[in-house]
């Protein structure tokens, strides 16, 4: 009797533990994946259209509403773009405090993802509350860290949801000295919590798929990766003007559209993005891989670098949580209230480009502005949409490496884990797990 080739169709109608609405369809014929689609259901959010005709001063408040988890990223990419066009120098105090503000977002977003989305996966639980019964201290620690991140955002944004404290040129208000003095001991305690978390996470048994199969050459890269992050002159990047790829390309952000191509695919309301016609990814693992020498050695000695396994992004996120706390403490230790928390600005007509590293990867903005400071056109490329094509490739490679003869429930679980590695923020991704597997 010859081999019987099975056809399997798996359908994951609703992906669990991701932000937003997505699903996965998979077709397998024998030992090959013949079709794979990550379906995105979020309705397009039309923010780019909404910004047309608005005054530049309204942009930070409007774009903050694109995402409830990463409003800081949207505000920073926007103000950096407009300040560059208007030739505004916000000053050292604003630049330093923006890093603190951004660190707050990395801390709250990464902590939420690690403790409520990712760790339940790797520890064998269906949800964060279920995990909390067996790991109460670890979950409490994670929630403390998340609350600390929200507190840093509130310090400058007045609130953590749809923060309103940001303006082109800086902030509307500087925090009072006594607030910073009261916060520093909490940040120091948070740093101890984050280091303990990092050490704990390095003990986790993470999947190590054999991407090249059993015949993979020794020392061969574990997975085909092309990744990109912002370069911020000698600092671990939060904001910058040049993109660096793993292939060594250095791309000024105003040339983004010459190198990166967005394509609409029928099965997704989020656009797919390509660099040199190839998928690529952005986010913590990209940053940690590209700029590991800019992280403190007490962090880098604990995690495998560079990471060629998307499951290592969990450890990359925790490493960034430690960095965020160290950076915040360093920047706030000698805090002084400024004479003014912002620089005045006058609009100029032209094209504005801005880019910053959201928790999930770099977020690129372009605005066309008229002489009155009105937005004529806007384009926003979020990190999650940039990762879509790579997510599909990763799922395909990871399931092939695991073996497609595995039970559908096992395939489904592994596919969901791969998607969660990228921490997709699907609501942002539309600027735009139900797993359906067909086996033949």
């Amino acid at each position, binding site marked *: 009797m010859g081999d019987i080739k099975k056809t399997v169709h798996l359908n994951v109608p609703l992906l669990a533990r991701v932000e*937003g609405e997505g699903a996965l369809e998979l077709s397998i014929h024998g030992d090959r994946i013949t079709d794979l689609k990550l379906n995105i259901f979020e309705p397009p959010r039309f923010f780019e259209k909404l910004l047309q005709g608005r005054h530049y001063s309204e942009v930070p408040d409007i774009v903050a509403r694109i995402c409830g988890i990463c409003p800081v990223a949207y505000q920073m990419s926007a103000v950096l773009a407009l300040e560059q066009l208007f030739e505004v120098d916000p000053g050292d105090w604003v630049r330093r405090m923006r890093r603190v503000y951004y660190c707050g977002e990395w801390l709250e977003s990464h902590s939420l993802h690690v403790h409520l989305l990712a760790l339940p996966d790797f520890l064998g639980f269906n949800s964060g*509350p279920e995990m*909390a*019964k067996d790991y*109460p201290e670890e*979950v409490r620690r994670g*929630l403390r860290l998340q609350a600390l991140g929200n507190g840093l955002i509130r310090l400058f944004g007045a*609130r*953590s949801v749809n923060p309103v404290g940001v303006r082109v040129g800086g902030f509307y208000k500087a925090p009072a000295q006594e607030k910073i003095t009261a916060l520093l001991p909490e940040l120091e305690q948070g740093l101890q919590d984050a280091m303990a978390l990092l050490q704990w996470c390095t003990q986790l048994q993470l999947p190590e798929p054999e991407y090249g199969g059993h015949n993979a050459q020794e020392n061969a890269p574990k997975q085909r990766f092309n990744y990109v992050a912002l370069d911020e002159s000698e600092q671990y990047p939060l904001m910058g003007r040049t993109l660096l790829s793993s292939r060594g390309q250095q791309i000024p952000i105003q040339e983004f559209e010459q190198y990166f191509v967005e394509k609409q695919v029928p099965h997704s309301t989020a656009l797919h993005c390509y660099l040199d016609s190839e998928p690529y990814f952005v986010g913590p693992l990209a940053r940690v891989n590209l700029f590991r020498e800019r992280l403190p050695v007490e962090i880098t000695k604990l995690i495998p670098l560079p990471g060629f396994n998307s499951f290592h992004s969990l450890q990359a996120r925790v490493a960034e949580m430690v960095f965020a706390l160290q950076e915040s403490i360093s920047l706030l230790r000698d805090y002084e209230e400024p004479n003014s928390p912002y620089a005045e600005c006058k609009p100029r007509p032209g094209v504005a480009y801005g880019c910053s590293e959201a928790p999930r990867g770099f977020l690129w903005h372009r605005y066309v502005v008229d002489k009155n400071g009105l937005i004529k056109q806007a384009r926003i490329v979020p990190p999650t949409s940039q990762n879509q094509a790579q997510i599909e490739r990763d799922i395909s490679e990871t399931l092939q490496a695991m073996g497609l003869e595995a039970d559908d429930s096992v395939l489904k679980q592994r596919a969901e884990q791969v998607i969660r590695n990228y921490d997709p923020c699907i*609501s942002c991704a539309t600027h735009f797990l139900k797993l359906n597997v067909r086996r033949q």
Partner: protein
Amino acid sequence: MSTSTVIGLGSSHGDDRLGWAVLEALEIKLGSQSNIGYIYCDRTVFDWLAYTHGVDQVFFIDAVMSDDKPGRVHQIDLHEIPADRYKGLSTHGFSLFDAIEMAKSLDSLPTISILYGIELEQCQPLEIMQESVVDAVPICVEALSKALI
């Protein structure tokens, strides 16, 4: 003397502000008291967990929507809600009820934990509170002040 935490959930927009509006009115009515903590939460998810551990009772105030009369003030015992009953009812995958489950798992939900939910007429992104909600605020404040005394 028993200790209580009253948590107003919401944001500054429209009917979503009602949790904070009730809290503001309650603070004016009861004044500052050492055994009552007033927490204004701008995120449903988990930020309030630090304030419920170790107190005798906790009261949440939030907007709710069912088929009931707009402005009705529901009182819901949070220990009586099944774990999966309201799963996924949130824009970001974590609702108040997910957070309640987390609090139970962490032993951070007092025996007396009540949600005061004000029924909305509609769920629309408006900038001001609807009349039925405005009228319900003093009713909710009155009910809460009796529970806190």
